[in-house]
């Protein structure tokens, strides 16, 4: 009797354990994702290793086989009961590009960004080297003047140029209705002109440099390191954002030609820009606009006022089909009107693993730059990007200078 009772008890316990195990196995919520490595809230490392290869289809040669490593370090410290936060960020690029040996160092490195931020309740202060985009337009912007175009490798994509971060002091004062922001660049923007012999060197500049190299002229290309700065007032509101701004700086490119005795000089010129920008949310669309006025600046070799406008629209159709269209127009008394359109049409495919699309710009003087591209993500860290970009335009026009630079690009990036 006793053994029988024991057997029954063992069987009951076994059944209960089995039931528990079975229940656990069937419990869909029996997972713990928090076991994954936690992110350190104070210090964070990041970066990537990238291989970017550009094959120029006109010249049928590899113009760039750049291997790049970027290392980023971020630091965050909150003090005074969370009212003030100190943050630091630094990123360093190390590159190797054997194909640029004729005009640029094969191995190069630079501090891309390095800044310290004091983030307070009423005022934020940033000191260091930083990229800051101003304005609301996506392709061509009249207001994005805090950072210089990187003329050595100027193609961000077919409708935007790549920019170089600037050393600056930035103060943001929070006001009841908006934010007042002031930026001061003690040594000006970090302008880098294309090297002599680079495929991105404009024809006119190359011609002058060639004459200098041949001993035909004495040429000085001035690199002004004077301070620049600007201020803007921004309001982000319900349905509508707007800003008013002013920037006092220099043109990116040396556009003023002067001669003293037998010495030729190319210099950038001061440009003061008064600007306004706005963005309106309209259900599924956004309208964006910018207007900028620069009095007494230098346009097409002569002094003139310059008025620039951008009007844009973008919208997402269905789930992921994104369309972006922007019209731009520049008017100066000293030259013909400059006008055009930038565009982008992109979509996500293959469970959003890939972005595919076409984007570019079409402008006066028969200029265009058009790019078809695909970015494919393998998992969380590895991305393959391909693009084919073509340029065209009249001789001497900005895009016409890159007429022979149509390229296929293949980029493999591993991020950590």
């Amino acid at each position, binding site marked *: 009797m006793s053994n029988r009772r024991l057997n029954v008890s063992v069987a009951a316990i076994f059944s209960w354990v089995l039931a528990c195990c079975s229940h656990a196995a069937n419990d*869909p*919520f029996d*997972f*713990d*994702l*928090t076991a*994954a490595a936690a*992110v350190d809230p104070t210090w964070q490392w*990041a970066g*990537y290793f990238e291989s970017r290869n550009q094959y120029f289809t006109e010249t049928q040669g590899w113009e760039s086989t750049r291997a790049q490593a970027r290392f980023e370090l*971020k630091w965050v410290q909150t003090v005074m009961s969370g009212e003030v936060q100190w*943050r630091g*960020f630094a990123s360093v690029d190390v590159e190797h590009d054997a194909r640029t040996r004729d005009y640029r160092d094969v191995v190069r490195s630079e501090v891309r960004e390095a800044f310290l*931020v004091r*983030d307070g*309740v009423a005022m*934020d202060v940033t000191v260091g080297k*930083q*990229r*800051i*985009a101003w304005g*609301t337009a996506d392709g061509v912007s009249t207001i994005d003047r805090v950072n210089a175009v990187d003329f050595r490798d100027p193609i961000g994509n077919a409708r935007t140029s790549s920019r170089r971060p600037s050393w600056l002091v930035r103060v*943001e004062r*929070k006001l009841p209705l908006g*934010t007042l922001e002031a930026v001061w660049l003690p040594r000006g923007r970090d302008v880098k002109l294309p090297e002599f012999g680079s495929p991105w060197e404009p024809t006119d500049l190359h011609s002058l440099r060639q004459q200098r190299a041949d001993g035909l002229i004495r040429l000085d290309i001035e690199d002004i390191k004077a301070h620049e700065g600007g201020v803007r007032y*921004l309001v*982000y509101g*319900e*349905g509508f*954002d707007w800003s008013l701004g002013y920037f006092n700086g220099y043109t990116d490119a040396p556009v003023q030609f002067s001669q003293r005795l037998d010495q030729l000089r190319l210099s950038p010129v001061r440009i003061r820009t008064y600007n306004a920008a706005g*963005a309106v*949310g*309209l*259900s*599924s*669309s*956004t309208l*964006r606009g910018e207007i900028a006025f620069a009095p007494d600046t230098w346009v097409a070799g002569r002094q003139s006022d310059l008025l620039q406008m951008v009007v844009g629209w*973008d*919208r*997402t*159709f*269905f*789930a*992921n089909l*994104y369309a972006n269209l922007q019209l731009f127009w520049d008017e100066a008394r000293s030259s013909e009107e400059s006008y055009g359109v930038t565009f982008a049409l992109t979509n*996500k495919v293959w*469970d*959003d*693993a890939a972005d595919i699309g076409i984007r570019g710009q079409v402008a006066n003087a028969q200029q265009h730059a058009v790019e078809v591209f695909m970015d494919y*993500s393998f*998992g*969380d*860290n590895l*991305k393959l990007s391909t693009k084919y970009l073509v340029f065209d335009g009249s001789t001497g026009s900005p895009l016409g200078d890159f007429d022979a630079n149509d390229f296929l690009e293949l980029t493999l990036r591993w*991020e*950590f």
Partner: protein
Amino acid sequence: MFKTKYVMATVSLIAALHSHAQMPTGRDIAQRMDDVNSAQDGTRDATMLIERGGQKLQRKLNMMNKKFGDDERSIIRFIEPADVRDTQFLSWTYEATEKDDDMWVFFPSENLIRRISGGGKKGSFMRSDFANEDIEQRAVDDDVHMLLEESEWGNVAVFVIESVPIPAKAKDSNYAKRKTWVDKETWLALKVEYYDRRGRLLKQMTQGGIEQIDGIWTATKIIMETPRKKSRTLMQYANVRYNLGLQDSVFEQSSLKR
């Protein structure tokens, strides 16, 4: 005998009428669900694991929200994967159905704050089985709610309601209707089925890991499945905290920084 039967019939009728009067409407239930999170503000860390075929993708993000009267403002900061690290979404959502939500995205590489439209709500949230519209707070009157039945789901007494977007909101939604199993005790959704315009089941969400945090019932684990894609996303919340007294300025554009 006749008198007893008459009294019993009358009592039954009154009880039935009373019972019917007590039955909440679909909107009542939706409102109760909306009221569960009574906190003025909150923050939480979220980890997502996307399982699709043989692929596993992991995402980490931090979410903060605060109520501004009937409206709500929220910030989502992406922590992983690396290519979207420090990207942030700020949204101001309005209870008034005729008013479009305001949304901005912060791109850290350019220090750029950019207004975006609501057209992307149908898209996938970080390649997961969640759509962008699943992540954001949905106003009660964005849908018409109907009580379908009282039932049981996993030994829990539930109301089953059907929610159909109002015409003004239908164009921004992937779903023609949602069917929700609502726990009668906690007023949390235990299961949601999402249907397309042809009445086909698109996705199914189940919630678990339910616990009271700071006195507020909270589902800490969510599973979203897309049967047609043979894909599912597990989401788990950690460090959930409510009523922290977050300042209004946290939900302004000036706080969007790397």
